[in-house]
């Protein structure tokens, strides 16, 4: 969850400090990363269960598919790609690598089945320490911020394929 929040905050750094507005596929990858974090959030709040790992795994697969599509869209020789590369790779390539890594890690985690005790009552929220609560609140704030920035960027209709301005601010 903390890693997902860091990735999403990093995306905001690129968006606001770098001035690079996210394309629709970029937004979909952010959604996938939110899904990965949401599965982890459920594990923290309600106890570790395979279904919560499943939420993260499905999100990672979705994110990998979207990132893979964006890689393939710019795979032709001479294509400059979308956005500024980071350490030689575009963000969607790093995103693809990240989602594949998340998928592998989650698969390994699912092997460790001693972590799955008898399921508690679904509504029993586990007690949270201050650090866990802080991470949860950051995760929620990042999700809420993405609602606001996406509305500012795209309005209530489809997002432009190559965004150059915030539709609701211009």
């Amino acid at each position, binding site marked *: 969850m903390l890693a997902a929040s860091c990735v999403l905050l990093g995306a905001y750094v690129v968006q606001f400090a770098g001035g690079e507005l996210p394309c*629709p596929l970029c937004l979909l990858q952010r*959604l996938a990363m939110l899904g990965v974090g949401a599965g982890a*959030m*459920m594990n923290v709040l309600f106890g570790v269960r395979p279904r919560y790992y499943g939420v993260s795994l499905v999100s990672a697969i979705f994110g990998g598919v979207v990132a893979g599509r964006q890689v393939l869209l710019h795979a032709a020789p001479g294509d400059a790609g979308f956005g500024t590369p980071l350490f030689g790779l575009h963000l969607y390539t790093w995103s693809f690598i990240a989602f594949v890594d998340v998928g592998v890690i989650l698969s390994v985690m699912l092997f460790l089945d001693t972590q799955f005790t008898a399921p508690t009552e679904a509504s029993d929220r586990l007690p949270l320490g201050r650090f866990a609560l802080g991470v949860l609140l950051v995760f929620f704030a990042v*999700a809420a911020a993405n*609602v606001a920035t996406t509305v500012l960027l795209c309005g209530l209709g489809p997002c432009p394929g190559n965004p150059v301005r915030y539709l609701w601010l211009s």
Partner: protein
Amino acid sequence: MMAAPFLAFAVSIALALGGRARSSLLVLGLALGLSSLAFLFHLSDPLIIGL
């Protein structure tokens, strides 16, 4: 339109923070479904490898 799945995720997180595990999971499923729909909507160009 693209904001809808983000809103669903935010609502899901809020529900989870409120202790509503089943509701949160349902809304999470909705968020993932909306994300998939948005992806299908944006599949307007053929893949570069011609699939």
